[in-house]
């Protein structure tokens, strides 16, 4: 068999010289393509103007062209290896990083990779039907770009499972395609990834808030002592930033349009005028932000502590932290409700790593809010969007037992029931948003509820025909 592996599967892991990987990927690839055809984007296209990573260098990782999606070349790329890299934290701090999986950590590393890997195809499945209601070709193209890159991220995790975890790893790679978002018998591992993404506002919110959780998880894995995982995640982070961009600018454009309509009709009730009211946008923020916070897990976690101590998963920007990177003597504060009052507890820092990561995430989320509020400010409106309190609408962790308002007041279940429709999208809100979701496939045209982007992709104009339908 003579397959040009570097052509078929662009890579920088010497696939052509690695028989083990070839065999593993050869048997996996048909299953992946089959999955893509049945679970991937539902809108039939001839080709899409996509970015393909063909190398890790400055030039290679963003190669643009019209390609048929099923012929998209899902590659395997790791960031360049730093041969001097040392473990930056935990008990083995200062020792050389691992190029192989130490047997001692096989189970934990495999679990971390499987959980990360499971989210990647999940979002493709969640967004499967969104293309049918794209507000423009530009947005449709962005959706597909996000989808193929999630697919590539799945490949990246599958590569690690195939290359380093033996037969058990291959079985896990197979299972990544067998679980499906929302499947009753075989759902995705994390709850948030089993909800369908019903509309484009949800999609933008998802890419802003939920993909950002992914970014932070990848950031912690980038610190891993298992070097191939670290390098894989480092490269994935580059692509992940595009997904953030889709979310940030997406919400930005919805807000821009809402502000325009609000001013034009001098009312926030812009629903009848084909817009999404700012109030509804706030409710969507409340919802997506709070369920994304749940993805960080319990505030106190012995798993996270064990992963840190073992060197498997670090903190966000571990090497920039000014402490001993071992944390056995440090403490941290976590938020909680005691006797009906919001307060803080001091706990061992090692146990509070989930909370630490979540804090970094929250600070990052604020940036988008500033940007969107600038749009409102420039439009001369007084209303501002905000992030709800971190205890609002939580299903996981210390707050899940309590009802907390977006402003941070602890309330009883009666108040919660009475007010929750003011804070979270109601059926009527969702129905209205869905009613606006009509496809606009004409180049240069855009739906009523969203403003066009300020610029196109890769210096192409907004009017460019980013997608050709079949």
């Amino acid at each position, binding site marked *: 068999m003579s397959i040009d592996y570097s052509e078929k599967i662009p890579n920088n892991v010497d696939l052509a010289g690695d028989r*083990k990987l070839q065999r593993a990927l050869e048997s996996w690839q048909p299953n992946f393509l089959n999955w893509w055809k049945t679970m991937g984007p539902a809108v039939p296209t001839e080709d899409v103007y996509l970015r393909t990573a063909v190398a890790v260098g400055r030039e290679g990782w963003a190669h643009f062209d019209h390609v048929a999606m099923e012929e998209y070349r899902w590659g395997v790329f790791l960031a360049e290896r730093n041969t001097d890299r040392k473990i930056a934290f935990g008990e083995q701090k200062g020792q050389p990083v691992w190029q192989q999986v130490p*047997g*001692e950590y096989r189970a934990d590393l495999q679990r971390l990779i499987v959980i990360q890997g499971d989210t990647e195809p999940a979002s493709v499945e969640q967004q499967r039907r969104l293309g049918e209601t794209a507000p423009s070709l530009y947005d449709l193209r962005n959706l597909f770009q996000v989808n193929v890159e999630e697919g590539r991220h799945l490949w990246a995790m599958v590569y690690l499972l195939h290359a380093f975890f033996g*037969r*058990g790893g291959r079985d896990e790679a197979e299972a990544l395609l067998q679980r499906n978002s929302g499947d009753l018998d075989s759902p995705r591992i994390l709850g948030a990834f089993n909800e369908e993404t019903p509309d484009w506002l949800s999609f933008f919110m998802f890419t802003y808030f939920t993909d950002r959780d992914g970014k932070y998880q990848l950031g912690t894995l980038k610190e891993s002592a298992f070097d191939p995982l670290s390098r894989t995640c480092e490269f994935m982070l580059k692509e992940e930033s595009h997904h953030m961009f889709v979310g940030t600018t997406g919400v930005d454009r919805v807000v821009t349009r809402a502000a325009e309509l609000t001013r034009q009709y001098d009312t926030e009730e812009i629903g009848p005028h084909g817009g999404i009211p700012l109030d509804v946008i706030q409710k969507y923020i409340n919802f997506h932000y709070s369920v994304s916070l749940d993805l960080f897990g319990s505030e106190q976690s012995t798993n996270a502590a064990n992963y840190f101590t073992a060197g498997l998963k670090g903190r966000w920007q571990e090497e920039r932290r000014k402490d001993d990177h071992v944390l056995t003597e440090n403490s941290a504060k976590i938020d909680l409700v005691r006797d009906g009052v919001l307060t803080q507890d001091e706990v061992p820092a090692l146990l509070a790593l989930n909370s630490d990561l979540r804090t970094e995430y929250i600070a990052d989320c604020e940036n988008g809010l500033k940007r969107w509020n600038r749009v409102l400010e420039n439009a001369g409106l007084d209303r501002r969007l905000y992030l709800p309190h971190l205890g609002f609408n939580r299903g996981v962790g210390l707050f899940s037992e309590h009802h907390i308002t977006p402003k941070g007041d602890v309330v009883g279940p009666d108040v919660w029931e009475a007010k929750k429709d003011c804070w979270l999208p109601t059926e009527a809100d969702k129905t209205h948003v869905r009613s606006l979701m009509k496809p606009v496939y004409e180049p240069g045209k855009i739906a009523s509820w969203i403003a066009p982007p300020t610029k196109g992709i890769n210096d192409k104009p907004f009017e460019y025909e980013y997608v050709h339908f079949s």
Partner: protein
Amino acid sequence: MTTTIEPDTTPAVSFDADPASYKHWKLDVQGEVAYLRLDIDEDGGIVPGYELKMNSYDLGVDIELYDATQRLRFEYPGVHAVVLTSAKDRNFCAGANIRMLAQSSHPWKVNFCKFTNETRNGIEDASAHSGQVYIAAVNGTAAGGGYEMALACEEILLIDDNSSAVSLPEVPLLGVLPGTGGLTRVVDKRRVRKDRADVFATKSEGARGKQAVEWKLVDEVIPKRNWDETVAERAATAAARSNRPSNDSGATGIALTPLQREETADGITYEHVKATFDRGQGLVEITVFGPEGDVPDTVDRVHELGADFWPLAMTRQLDDLILRLRANELELGTWVIRTEGDVEDALAFEKVIEDFSGSDWLVNEIRHYFKRTLKRLDVTSRSLIALIEPGSCFAGALLELALACDRQYMLDGLMEDNDEEGAPAQIVLSASNFGTFPMSNGLSRLGSRFWGGPDDDGAAMAKLRQETSRRIEAAEAAELGLVTEAFDDIDWEDDIRIMLEERASLSPDALTGMEANHRFVGPETMESRIFSRLTAWQNWIFVRPNASGPEGALRRYGTGRKAEFDRKRV
């Protein structure tokens, strides 16, 4: 006050012994009866720090006893009965030396007990399968391990001098158990009623005279004046029942020549067995080399080869290696076992054993010796992993080595990078795998592996029997359940490496407990109970402060101070 010896300062133990240089035993062969007299050299302890008073023993004494029992079987076909007695006046044996136990580390105590137990089991094996019946002539007080030594014999004769007694004083005096089979054999073998056993084992002075007989603790009490003749008579009677060659048959023993081995910091090499230490990974790679041609075609040739006959030579080397690794290499927690050689040759040698073990005393001894060596492996507290690769000869008897392991990995196909052409790995079942080498639970290793419960109709084993004598490759071996996994060459290296590293990262104590539980399924026998119940409890008691804490009974013994117990029952 004695202090606990740290394991790493304990000198390496050698299991070599030779009657000419015994310090503690006198072997006296008189026709069909051999007298094995315990005459302990007080100053001859295997490590410094205690005196072996009152005929009390330590590991060194037992190493000589093991050697003597082996030589009696291989070098003395004409010996039909063995009288185990003492050369000291009024003192048969006081058991394991208490000061030695008090100063020993936990691993040392555990290893010591395991080895002494195996030797006692070997004595019973000689009585049962070699026609070499052991009789204890207890010519003085037998306390604790001393009485346990007698319990391993088929008959116990006690001198009736109104002072010599048999006793198990461990519980009342030392706060530990008579752990060398004592508690088990009293009820299991001698059928002492359990309430009497309870009284006996808590009464430090023990029992003597008529009561000892009435309670079945001994078979007979003999007045001092008739002692020697009566013992000789009983021995002669036992010898007459033996199926060993008679002394006028001309049968001659074979010499168990000194073992040749080369020891370095990184391993031990024998002619047919090789061990390479990987201290970084905490494992030892053991390779057993199969025979190379020259299959004896007559039983005479087997006798002529004697200790050089491959099955015997290999077994002796493997036995020695197991003992050395167990005693001296505590941190090599995983044993990776391979074989190397020709499958046909291995099967041909095995056929010699199969064909002649019923009719020839020497071949019979070799069979039972390999059986005992496999049993040593069964109770070894190390993770045992068999790697079955091309060029290996896990066939028949040698397949037992793999079946004794906790897991078996078989390479499916050949390693592609290896230039050598050859056949893929294969295993062969033979009749030997169906009961020739039973485990302590009375089942074959295959029978244990496929244990179907007390109502098993035997269909699974009958099906496997049909697979004998043919070469079974990896995929089929996996399908038949004979191996844990069959990895191909692409997976082999990584999967094996990760598996071994993962194993090495687990708690050694939890592994020991887990493995001991999985290895023995189904029925219990007296022998299996000694290991699974008596020694397991003993090892727990050993680490408890009530025994080995500074105020514990074992440490306070002989200091004139009373032990202070934590009174909570656990």
